[in-house]
């Protein structure tokens, strides 16, 4: 993943706001990167750009050999479907679908024939084989986030984006979910970009990028990574 001179400026009632002011970042396949920084530093915006959900105002972005500048909205969606899994802070499961249906969505959108078998496997991998037919409202917060994680990894993405994945969970449940995220990322060889306020959580990644005021303030290898498979 290559980010060169990435800038993001958004219009608001009070005039233009410079959210990202020039990000240069290269991440290797399989790296786990923790992005930390105070609120408003541009962490989430950086993730939106990497997910292809926002277009940079300036700069270039290349992921898995694909230049995002060349892709329109639908092509970006297609790319996301193939290469990127996202875990949200607020889970964002579809409330009218069961756990297994939620997990099968990305595969169904892609027209994968055995989407439900794969979904069941993914749910098994996050320890929810017994909750397949439950609706989100019937699941605890931790379980919902595990379903969301299963949904993110079911397509075996090259890049896993996690936006404050434990932000809505208690400590203990958060730890379980984080263990799963690291474990599954390693298992699939996915690059993990973890956005968090929690320095301890970031420290479990192989690399920590510190954002402040829309710029990279610090970019270093972690002293105590959970695992590190830099290729």
């Amino acid at each position, binding site marked *: 993943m290559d980010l060169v001179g990435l800038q993001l400026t958004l219009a608001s009632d009070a005039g233009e706001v410079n959210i990202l002011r020039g990000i240069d970042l290269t991440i290797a396949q399989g790296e786990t990167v923790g992005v930390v920084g105070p609120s408003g530093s541009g962490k989430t915006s950086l993730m939106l750009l990497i997910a292809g959900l926002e277009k940079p105002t300036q700069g270039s972005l290349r992921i898995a050999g694909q230049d995002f500048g060349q892709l329109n909205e639908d092509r970006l969606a297609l790319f996301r479907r193939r290469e990127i899994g996202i875990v949200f802070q607020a889970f964002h499961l579809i409330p009218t679908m069961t756990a297994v249906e939620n997990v099968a969505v990305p595969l*169904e959108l892609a027209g994968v024939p055995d989407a439900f078998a794969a979904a069941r496997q993914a749910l098994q991998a996050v320890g929810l084989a017994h909750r397949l037919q439950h609706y989100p409202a019937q699941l605890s917060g931790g379980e919902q986030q595990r379903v969301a994680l299963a949904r993110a990894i079911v397509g075996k993405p090259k890049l896993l984006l996690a936006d404050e994945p434990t932000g809505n969970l208690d400590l203990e449940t958060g730890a379980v979910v984080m263990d799963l995220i690291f474990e599954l990322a390693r298992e699939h060889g996915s690059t993990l970009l973890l956005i968090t306020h929690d320095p301890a959580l970031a420290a479990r990644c192989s690399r920590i990028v510190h954002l402040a005021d829309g710029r990279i303030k610090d970019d270093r290898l972690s002293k105590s990574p959970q695992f590190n498979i830099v290729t």
Partner: protein
Amino acid sequence: MASSPMAVLKFAWRDLRSSLRGGLRGFRIFLICLILGAAVIAAIGSLSSGIVAGLAANGKAILGGDLEFRLIYRPADQDEMHALNGSGTVTHSEEMRAMVKATAGTAAANTASSDPALVEVKAVDRLYPLYGQAEIDPPQDLQAALTQRPDGRYGALVEPTLLQRLQIGVGDTVTLGQVRLIIAGTLLHEPDRGSQIFGLGPRLMISPQALAASDLAQPGSLIYHVYKVKLQPGLDAARVKDQLSARFPTAGWRIRGVEDASTGLRNFLNRTAQYLNLVGFCALLIGGLGVANAVRAFLESKARSLAVLKCLGASSSQLLALYLILVGVMALIGTAIGLVIGAVTPFFLGAMLARFDVPILAGLYLKPLLLAAAISLLTAFAFALAPLLKARRVKPAQLFRSGPVELGGLNRYDLGAIGGAAIVLAAAAILTAGSIKLAAGFVAAAVLTLIAFAVLAAGLKRLAGHGKARLQGQSRALRFALADIARRQSPTASVVLSIGLGLTVLVAIALIQRNMLRDLEETVPGHAPSFYFIDIQPQQIDAFDAFARKFPGADDFQRVPMLRGRIAAVKDVPADRLKPPSDIAWVLKGDRGLTWSATAPSNAKIVEGQWWPADYQGPPLISLDAAAAKGLGLTIGDSLTVNLLGREITGKIANLREIDWSSLDINFVMVFSPGLLQQAPQTYIATLRVPTDSEGKLLAASTQEFPNVSAIRVK
């Protein structure tokens, strides 16, 4: 991992099922709107198809024969009769308007109304009816009912309304001209009544002998001789019609076949269907807004899920396809329910309409149902398109920020697509409404109303925005309310549009109804005559003039000669080859009243040409209604041929008059110069105005003194 349409379909099906798990909720309004709209349009279409089929199936009974020959003033001559008899069984009836009166000195006289009543007399011969059955109360044989009784009275059958009007009953006696009639029973169903074009009063059915004894049939009396023919087996009605037309080119008879037996009813049906179709379109327009609101509300409630789907790799077109399928399935369900309701309507209303002598052949009529389905689905699509297009443009980045997830905006391609769908819907409505002019007006009015309310809503939002800014530090509740009205994605526009359009339609329908009623009440102008008197015989004119002038309070007395004839040719082109515009077609249809005059009528407004000199006695000149002239493409100097009593008279147009028919004064499409027409057998028509409280007296006195003269009350 390319997605196939099948995968989208499967996913759509799963999404539909999962959306419906929460119940129909948002779709309840959607379904109700479409069910109502589709049901109304399907019901109107099915009902009119049922009636048209009923008319076709009962054509012979409605016409009373396979062919009908209608003559004014004169019976068929020997040659004509011979030809008619040669083609099959013939029944002859004589029809005219006349006054009847409850006879004094009978049992009912004390309670009976002294006012005479206008009736449509029909004298039928012994072969009547050729098709169908008359329904009589008390049940009896029709011919036996009409025979002369030993005491000299003739039997008569009447429509029940006449008994109410005269306040008499079966067995009582009424006087018609010089003859006394005993009411033998009431006519509940007259088999060929549906073929009558226009009726001013209830039916009085008698025998030809009774009519002769009444002495009402004078030379020049407005009397129709109607011959209905039951063709010999193997004879083709159309061919017989052509043969007899060719053999008697100047007979002046109007020949009708089964297919045009019920033109009056058909025209009425078409006009009613047009009006009801407009009501249906109103229902669909309101329904369409309901659809738009329901789909928007549904998709707004799903905005978060839509954004999630986009994050998971759903493309905009996939989202559009997904929810288009969902809305489509819902629209199909709503439309199907509406069609079922519409399709069964003829079965339920059949019995009700049968009471009004409207035959209805209940059945499944595919064409109106398909039409209703198409209009309903098009409406659903056109009105759901905007929220659907907004849904596909939902910005998934909203999931990562605090605040609600809102649907996206519309770009110019979206607006183009919505405009295209609206144009297709409008075109479909215009093409299927029956009257292109009416439907186009409706569509234009609907579009203007929508634009007006959209502008109003935008203005309201701006005003709320300004108001909010000015209220800083004051009433918090008001500020919040204004802020909510002004916010970008607020439902202000749809609320204003829905309530505004709903109220507009309600008010419009109420106003149309009120105006129609008021039109009927008020178009009878204050200066309109109280009565028309018809069939005044030439030898009666002096006496009638004296009677009218000396009647207390009488005013505005007018009397002119009247003949009836048909336009046979326009500029030497036979009338049946002309295709005049629909609003002028009546001039050529059937017979028209015409008159002659040496001087211009006092109410004449000549817009072109000159009136002839008062002593003019040359070849016939004609003064023509300007609107009719325009419709028929006639100008000054052109020729017009009229068939009068079997004789064709050609005249030249001398001038054009602008006629205000709503004045209810005596007016004729054609006024001839004196001369030729003076010699023809004719009667006189008169109008007279009297104070409202002496109308009854005038009616009684005129009937007493001139039993053969029919008085038609105007108000």
